[in-house]
């Protein structure tokens, strides 16, 4: 295990940036672990959420942003709902993902690609077009679609459409995305 | 020389001995930093505060007056803050008539344990007074005449 020099490796800008973007005060966390105790995804995490909180307090930017956990959090809100210090932990996880994206980290590629494909679909169609989203996801991950078996069952039930549903304001939605890209590149 | 030119305004506080004065002490013990403008006058009970004190303070050139007593039903003398509230509410309505901006006077409750609350009250009130800026001062002879009229009015 690494020895961490607490003073020299503490990135205090990172601490204040997380605080600012999430609106949460990190020193409130007293490491009780209740968030970890209730997190349904702890088993999948490389760093449990309470330790993510601890690492942020210690300004360990890189360790945090490259963590897989960020991408496996489902925003189920159980940490937020139960934190004795009323810290909106789920929001902090969200903010960390934003930062990770900006800095080019993607701890779990499949998840990031899936989310990107989803948004891609929204950007194109105004609504999610499930088949298109899947096609996009498969082409980006190069993964064979493991849910293939579901298709034949869903199609006849009218649950999967091969064409996106018509939506007139799709340009309007696309503009939201393009403006967002402009704004965030400023 | 009383106020630090450009830094402070003249803010006077009337605090009851049991609750708010203690709350200000608690804030001090807790080292809860506050703006330095306020000067506190200790009175035994908010019921001891005569509205005339506030008017005279404002007329004599104060930019803000803060009164603070015990929480309702928590008065050391049972009913003092109840009387205070009645009187000071009347005063609040009178102030504009007398030519004072109502924002220059405020009445609040802080208990002896509420150091942090006291810090917030002082900080907020001081900010409020700084927003209003220095109060227009009334000149001498006229002042005492107006003051007499007011005494009659109250």
């Amino acid at each position, binding site marked *: 295990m690494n020895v961490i020099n607490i003073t020299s490796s503490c990135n205090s800008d990172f601490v204040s940036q997380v605080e600012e973007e999430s609106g949460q005060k990190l020193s409130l966390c007293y490491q009780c672990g209740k968030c970890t105790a209730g997190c*349904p995804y702890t088993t999948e995490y490389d760093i449990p959420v309470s330790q993510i909180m601890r690492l942020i307090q210690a300004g360990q930017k890189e360790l945090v942003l490259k963590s897989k956990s960020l991408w496996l959090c489902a925003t189920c809100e159980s940490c937020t709902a139960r934190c004795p210090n009323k810290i909106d932990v789920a929001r902090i996880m969200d903010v960390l993902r934003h930062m990770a994206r900006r800095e080019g980290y993607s701890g779990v590629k499949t998840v990031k690609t899936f989310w990107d494909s989803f948004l891609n679909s929204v950007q194109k169609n105004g609504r999610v077009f*499930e088949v298109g989203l899947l096609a996009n996801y498969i082409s980006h991950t190069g993964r064979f679609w493991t849910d293939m078996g579901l298709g034949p069952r869903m199609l006849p039930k009218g649950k999967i459409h091969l064409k996106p549903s018509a939506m007139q304001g799709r340009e309007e939605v696309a503009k939201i995305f393009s403006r967002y890209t402009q704004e965030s590149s400023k | 020389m009383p106020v630090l030119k450009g830094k402070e305004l003249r803010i006077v506080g009337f605090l009851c001995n049991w609750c708010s004065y203690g709350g200000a002490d608690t804030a001090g013990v807790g080292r809860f930093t506050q703006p330095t403008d306020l000067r506190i006058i200790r009175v035994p009970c908010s019921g001891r505060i005569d509205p005339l004190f506030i008017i005279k303070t404002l007329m004599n050139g104060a930019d803000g007056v803060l009164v603070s007593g015990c929480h309702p039903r928590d008065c050391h003398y049972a009913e003092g803050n109840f009387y205070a509230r009645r009187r000071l509410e009347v005063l609040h309505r009178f102030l504009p008539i007398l030519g004072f901006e109502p924002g220059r006077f405020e009445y609040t409750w802080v208990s002896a344990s509420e150091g942090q609350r006291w810090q917030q009250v002082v900080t907020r009130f001081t900010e409020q007074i700084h927003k209003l800026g220095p109060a227009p001062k009334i000149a001498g002879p006229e002042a005492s005449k107006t003051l007499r009229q007011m005494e009659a009015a109250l």
Partner: protein
Amino acid sequence: MSCALSYAYYPGCSSTGTSVEYDMSSRAICAALDIKLSDVPDWSCCGSTPAHTVDHTLSSALSARNLSQVASMGLTAAVTPCPSCLSNLRTAQHRMKNDSFRQKVSKLLDRPADITVETKSVLQILVEDCGVDRIRAKVTRPLTGLTVAAYYGCIMNRPAEIMNFDDREHPMAMDNIMAALGATVVPFPLKVECCGASFGIPRRDVVMRLSGKLLDTAKEMGAMALVTACPLCQMNLDMRQEQINSANGSQHHMPIFYFTQLMGLAFGLSEKELGIDKLCVNPRTVIDALGMEGQPL
């Protein structure tokens, strides 16, 4: 029965696909209860989880567009069946109470954001605006003999400050409706545990584990069926039930209804208009055991 309940209706993307039966049954029971739903014209996706993981202004803008669509209808209240959509709409409204945030969001939009519209879930208006008594009065074919577990999913009631609905650990809204329909409701301890959410595709193993546990527990508590209020939960539990069985070595055959479907059945509506045939796990035996004469699937 005079009833002036009228709402803008935001179906959400899945209603056109994977949760079409939720949409159908929600419309059907609202009609039966004299609740008027007017579709939000040209609604668009709320951005779901992926949007807020990218950026909060983007996510809020996608929701805000729909809120202004509602406002342009001249309606002040909107409902959606989907808790995930609702959570996005409400979170956006909550964040946009902050002026500077709202300005940032407005920069992304054609029209300024509107935060005055009241947003609720179909479940919420049924218990809060319509009331369980009126639901009970509508029942013509009580669900006597049906034992269900009510599963709410993780975000129907959380965080409490934003969702402001029912109890955050032990919600009772669906339990109460099911009881009013004559069903027996088992105490289900995992009411608000996460089902695996949208990880079905990128991390199916997670869904297998989490949804599997829900099915195991429901069975242990003696439930014949699970009743849900969330398209994502329903999909994970229903569509993926076979996958769960093969991944976990379990033998579940548990119908996963939308609560609106069971309401419709109890109101005497046809299985067709409730989309019963769209369910993946065949509910036939469970429905037949109720002694209702249903059409064959």
